[in-house]
C-alpha cells in the first residue's frame, strides 16, 4: 500500500476560495504588524548588544542561587535561565553603557562574581558579547540581506516568467516574512542572526514552492489556450498539490528531527523554519497563484517553450 496524502486527480476548488484566503492573509499581516509595534521583537545579543554566558555548575544550584551571584555586580539587568541540563545555565546581561570596551570589562566582572559564588568548578561553555558597533552592523546587515534576497527573487522571476508572476511571487514572499516576524513577536522567541538566516531560507523555500506552481501554470496556459484563467490556475494548483505536500512533509520531518534532537542552539532556528515553510506552502497555493488573476497574465502571447520540444522528442 502506498502512502498518498493527496489522492490522484484531486480537484479542490482553491481559486474560488481566494477572497477568503486574501482576507485571512491581510488580517494576519495586520495582526503581525500590530504585534510587532506593540510587543516588538526579542532581539538577541546579536542585534541588541550585550553579554551571553553559558555556564555549567556541577553542584546543581537553583536559578535563584545563580542570580544571587550577580547581586551587587552593577551589571544592570541579568537574566538567568536553565538551559538543557540541570547543571547548565544561560546568563544574559544587558548591554553595558559606555561603548564597546565596557562589554569586555563586564564579562570579567561576571566571571569574578561567578567564581566568588561557585569557585573554580564553573565551566564556561560559551561566552559571547557583542558591543554596540557590531550589533548595529549586524542589524543593518540582516535587514539589507532580507531585502536583497526579496529583490533578487523578484528579478529572477521577472527574468524567467513575466511581470505578473514576479509580483505575485513577491507578495507571497513578503507575506511569509511578515508572518514569521509576527510569530516571533507573539512568542517572544529570541530573534538573532540565525533567525535572519532562517528568514532568508524561508524566502528561498517559499519561492521554490511558488516557482513549481507557476511553472505548471505557464505550461497549462500554453496547453489550454481557450480555458479561462481561473480554471487553468485551479488545475495547475491541483496538479502540483501532491508534490507541494510531499516536499513540505519531508522538509518538516527533517526540521522536526532538528527541533527535537539538534540541541537548544538550533531549536529556535528550526522552529522558525517550520513555521515559515508552513506559511510558505500556504502562500504559494492560496496567494501566489490566485494573485495572477489580480495582476493579470497576458494570454495568447505565450512563446512556444520547451514543452513543445518535449512533445516532439517523445
Amino acid at each position, binding site marked *: 500500500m502506498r*502512502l*498518498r*496524502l493527496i489522492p*490522484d486527480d484531486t480537484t479542490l476548488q482553491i481559486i474560488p476560495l481566494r477572497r477568503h484566503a486574501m482576507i485571512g492573509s491581510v488580517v494576519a499581516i495586520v495582526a503581525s504588524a500590530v504585534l510587532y509595534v506593540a510587543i516588538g521583537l526579542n532581539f538577541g545579543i546579536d542585534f541588541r548588544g550585550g553579554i551571553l554566558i*553559558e555556564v*555549567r555548575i556541577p553542584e546543581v544550584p537553583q536559578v535563584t542561587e545563580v542570580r544571587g551571584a550577580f547581586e551587587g555586580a552593577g551589571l544592570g539587568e541579568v537574566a538567568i535561565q536553565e538551559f538543557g541540563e540541570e547543571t547548565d545555565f544561560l546568563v544574559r546581561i544587558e548591554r553595558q553603557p559606555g561603548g*564597546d*570596551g565596557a562589554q*569586555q570589562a563586564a564579562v*570579567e566582572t561576571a*566571571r569574578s562574581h561567578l567564581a566568588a559564588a561557585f569557585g573554580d568548578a564553573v565551566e*564556561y561553555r*560559551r*561566552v*559571547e*558579547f*557583542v*558591543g554596540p*558597533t*557590531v550589533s548595529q552592523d549586524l542589524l543593518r*546587515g*540582516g535587514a539589507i*540581506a532580507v531585502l536583497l534576497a526579496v529583490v*533578487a527573487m523578484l528579478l*529572477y522571476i521577472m527574468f524567467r516568467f513575466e511581470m505578473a508572476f514576479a509580483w505575485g511571487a513577491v507578495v507571497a514572499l513578503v507575506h511569509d516574512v511578515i508572518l514569521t516576524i509576527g510569530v516571533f513577536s507573539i512568542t517572544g522567541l529570541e530573534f538573532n*542572526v*540565525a533567525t*535572519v*538566516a532562517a528568514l*532568508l531560507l524561508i524566502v*528561498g*523555500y517559499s*519561492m*521554490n514552492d511558488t*516557482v*513549481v506552481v507557476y*511553472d505548471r501554470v505557464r505550461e497549462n496556459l500554453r496547453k489550454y489556450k481557450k480555458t479561462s484563467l481561473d480554471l487553468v490556475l485551479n488545475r495547475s494548483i491541483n*496538479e*502540483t498539490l501532491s*508534490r507541494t505536500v*510531499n*516536499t513540505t*512533509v*519531508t522538509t*518538516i*520531518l*527533517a*526540521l522536526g*528531527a*532538528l527541533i527535537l*534532537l*539538534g*540541541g537548544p*542552539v*538550533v531549536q529556535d*532556528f528550526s522552529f522558525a*523554519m517550520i513555521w515559515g515553510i508552513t506559511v510558505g506552502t500556504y502562500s504559494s497555493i492560496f496567494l501566489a497563484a490566485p494573485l495572477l488573476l489580480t495582476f493579470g497574465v497576458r494570454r495568447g502571447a505565450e512563446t512556444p517553450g520547451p*514543452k513543445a520540444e*518535449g512533445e516532439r522528442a*517523445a
Partner: protein
Amino acid sequence: MIHVPRWQIAVAVIAVVFAIVYSAPNFLPSSVSWLPGDPVRLGLDLQGGSHLLLRVDSDVVLEERIESVLDEIRTRFRGAGIGYTDIGVRQLAGGLTLTDPAQGEQAQELAEEADETLEIDLDASGRMTFRLDSTAEKELRISALSQSQEVIRRRIDETGTNEPTIQRQGDDRILVQLPGVDDPERIKRLLGQTAKMNFRMVDETASIPEALAGRVPPGSELLYEDDGSEQGIPIVVRRRVGVSGDNLVGAAPVIDQNNQPVVSLRFDAAGARRFGDLTTENVGRRFAIVLDGRVISAPVIREPIPGGSGQISGNFTFETASDLALLLRAGALPAPLVILEERTVGPSLGRDSIAAGTLAGQVALLLVIIYMVAVYGLFGVAADIALAVNIALLLGILSALGATLTLPGIAGIALTIGMAVDANVLIFERIREETRRGRSPVSAIDTGYRQALRAIIDANVTTLIAALVLFQMGSGPIRGFAVTLAVGVFTTMFCSLIISRLLVLTWLSRTRPQVLKV
C-alpha cells in the same frame, strides 16, 4: 529504449567513488590514514575556540602624529619670533591662536614647511587649525591596521595557539579566530595592552603636591607608579624619552638574586649605546620604566650599564613577568585595540553540539528515507540511494574544499536532506501524472525527467540565491551554513538528475514493466 550516454555513467561512477573516498574520513577513526582526504574541518562553534573582532583605534595614531607636527611648528615659530596661545590637539586637529594675527601669512608658510601633508586653516582672528589631508590620514590608518595585525600575530604565536586566523576586515577591524583556545582571557589581556614601553628620567626637581594640584613643570608629566594598588604612587617624569622600547631585541622572565620574578632585556646596538649614555650621565638619579602611561618601577641608577642588557623589576608574579616579556618581544601596538565582539565556545559545548547535530541528521535521514519508500515504493528506493550519495558527496566536497562545518552547517545538511528529495518528488509526481494519462512506462519516465527539469532548475536557483545572500551577509557560522547550502544545491541536482535517473533507467531496462507503479 531511452539512450543513456556513456559519459553520464562514467560521471556517475566517478562521483560515487569520490563521494565514498572523500567522505569516509568523517566516519572512520582517525587511525585510518591511507585515504587521501581529511575529515571536514570543524568551525569554532563545534571544536571550541574563540572568535574576537577587534577595532584598531587609529585615531590615537593620528593624534600622535599631529602632536609631533605641533612640536615641530612650535620650534619653528619660536625661531621666527611668532607668538601664540592655546595650542593643543582636539578632534584629530591641531590648533593654536596667534598673538598677532598680522603674522598669519608667515606662520602659514612655516607650518607648511613643517609638514607638507597638512591642511591649514587660518581665520581673521588668528586662529590656526591643522589637519592631515585625506591621503595622509588614510595611509596612517592603513599602516596602523597592518602593523597591528602583525603585532597581534606575533603575540598570539608566542602563546602557542594552533592555527590562529588573523584577518583584516574593513578599514579598521581585525578578526582573530583561535581554535581550541578554552581560556581566551589571557589572550584578551595580552591584546588589551598596547605595550608601549620607554625609559625616561624622573623629574626630581618637581614637587609631588604641586603636581597633584595641577602645576606640573613644563616638559614633565604626572604619572603613577605601580605598587599593587589600583591607584599607584604619584611620580613626576620627564616627557623626553631616553630609550624607547622599539630598541628592544629580547625580553625574558627570570628570577633575580632576591628570588623575585623580573624581566631581563636586551637592546639593539643603538639602544645599547643610548642606554649606556643615559646610565653613565645619570648615576645616582632615578629613571622610570614607563609602560602604557604607567610607571612599572623607578629605580636609582647605581652604576653605568654599558652592555646593552638590563633588568626591570616591579610588582611582578612570574606569570605577569612572562606576559610582559612576551609583549615586549612581540612589540608595541601602534594604537589600542577595542574588542567589539567575542564568541567563545568551550570544548564540551562543541562536543555536545556535534553529537546532537549528528543524531538529528541521522534521524532526519531515516525519516525521509522511510517516507520516500512509503510514498513512491521502488522509485523511493532510487531516490533514497541518490540521497545517500548526495550526503556523501556533500561531505566529500566540503572536506576536499577545506570548507568549515559549523553547527548551522549541520542544520543545513539536515535541511538539505529534507529538500534534496524535492527534485525526485517533482519527477516522480510527473511520471505518475504521465502514466495516468496513459503513457507507456518508458515514455512516462522519459517525459517525467524531461518535464520536471525546468521546475527543478528554477526551484534550485532560488535556494542558491538565498545561499549567496547568506554568504554575503554572514560571518563565521552563518557563512559555513551558506557554503553547505550552496554545495548542497549542486549535489542535489546532480544526484536527482543523474544518479536517480540512471537507477530508474537500469531498473526499467532490466524488468521492462508493462505498468508503472509510481
